[in-house]
């Protein structure tokens, strides 16, 4: 086995092009578990740990915060992300433990692409854009096109996720997650709700209740057609509960070792209702 510790992005991209068997490693919080338990036996590893260019947060495009794929959650949970994209900071703070948050990153969440990835619902609710580079090309893909299934994405072997662009939305946003305890937990169900006061709409995306993250377009449309969603409005309990029921109906959970489909559907109805009430209280 070979380990290539890249310091420059171009070194890592060249290594991917050269080695068809190469696997990328950033914080290692997913991949090292598989290696420790002999579930995978990689032959070539390309480490992105020391690529400083992936660890920057940029705000040079107006209305966009661009977060490098290697910025650890321990940084994302604080400023400047906390004020600009509070739901992302909240979601990052629910990841694992302080030790995991010091290592894990958005690039890892996207690379693994599990429906339980904590930050993915935030990307879906905010229509994040994913930057992918190869040695000689670049493309920017909407998160809605990026994730194609359970641990499946459109990322090609020779591509590296370099940054994630988050539109800055004026209004309230929040993230909630249900798990068996507070720390160190993989979500049983999660939801991110964004109230866009400028455009008077609400978006909601659900995690752990389908093969991909689910954006509840029908519930969003129902809410927008029946309520005034601009700043300073309030939402009745009945409307919030109906919104929760509709969001749960759009989810498509399964029974597995972490929970049951029935409980997950119930959890989504509660999370969606609560988040909406918090947004318009």
């Amino acid at each position, binding site marked *: *086995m*070979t*380990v*290539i*510790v890249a*310091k420059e992005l171009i070194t890592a991209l060249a290594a991917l092009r050269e080695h068809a068997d190469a696997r990328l*490693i950033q*914080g*290692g*919080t997913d991949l*090292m*578990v598989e*290696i*420790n*338990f002999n579930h995978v*036996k*990689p032959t070539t*590893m390309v*480490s992105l*740990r*020391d690529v400083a260019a992936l660890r920057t947060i940029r705000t040079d495009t107006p209305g966009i915060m661009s977060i490098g794929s290697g910025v*650890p959650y*321990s940084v994302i949970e604080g400023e400047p992300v906390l004020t600009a994209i509070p739901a992302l900071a909240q979601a990052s703070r629910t990841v*694992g*433990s*302080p*030790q*995991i948050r*010091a*290592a894990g990153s958005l690039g890892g969440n996207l690379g693994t692409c599990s429906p339980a990835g904590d930050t993915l619902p935030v990307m879906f609710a905010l229509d994040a854009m994913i930057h992918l580079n190869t040695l000689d090309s670049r493309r920017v893909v909407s998160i809605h096109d990026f994730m194609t299934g359970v641990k499946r994405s459109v990322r090609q072997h020779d591509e590296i996720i370099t940054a994630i662009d988050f539109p800055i939305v004026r209004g309230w946003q929040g993230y909630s997650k249900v798990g068996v305890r*507070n*720390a*160190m937990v993989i979500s049983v169900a999660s939801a991110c709700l964004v109230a866009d006061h400028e455009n008077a709409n609400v978006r909601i995306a659900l995690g752990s209740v389908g093969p991909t993250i689910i954006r509840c377009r029908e519930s969003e449309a129902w809410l927008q057609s029946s309520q005034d969603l601009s700043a300073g409005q309030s939402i009745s309990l009945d409307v919030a509960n109906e919104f929760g029921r509709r969001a749960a109906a759009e989810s498509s959970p399964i029974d597995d070792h972490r929970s049951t489909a029935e409980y997950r559907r119930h959890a989504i109805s509660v999370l969606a209702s609560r988040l909406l009430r918090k947004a318009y209280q």
Partner: protein
Amino acid sequence: MSANEFYQLRVNGKTHQVQDSWVGESLLYVLRERLGLPGTKGACEQGECGSCTVLMDDAAVCACLVMAATAINSEIVTVEGITTESALTDVQQSFVDEGAVQCGFCTPGLIVAVHHLLEKNPQPSEFEVKEAISGNICRCTGYGRVFAAVEATIRSRNAVK
């Protein structure tokens, strides 16, 4: 770097040669089995228990989730490196005094996590202490004695000032 090459790690201020190892080994395994530093404990090997907590470039991380060969440019501090003399640190002494060491398996990880917390935040709130050690699982103490040890350390450090 390939499988049979040597690589170097900076651990506790010294440069160590790692040799005759498989380059996919975790930092936890390398520390314990290659470098003779068994203070860092291994339990879950999946980042859930925190007993292998070490400092890497001044961040507390799980050594089991670090591929050692990717850490060649990092400064690593283990529980052995937290003190230079043979004496216990004030955090370690407080753990002893308050009965926060029972079976002891989680202790080195907790010691590293608490040292790291108090370094960054000398006057943490109760919530901040809880959050800082939320990745360190202790099945003996119920955490009450661990919190007491952290409080005792803070009290004694404040008294010295």
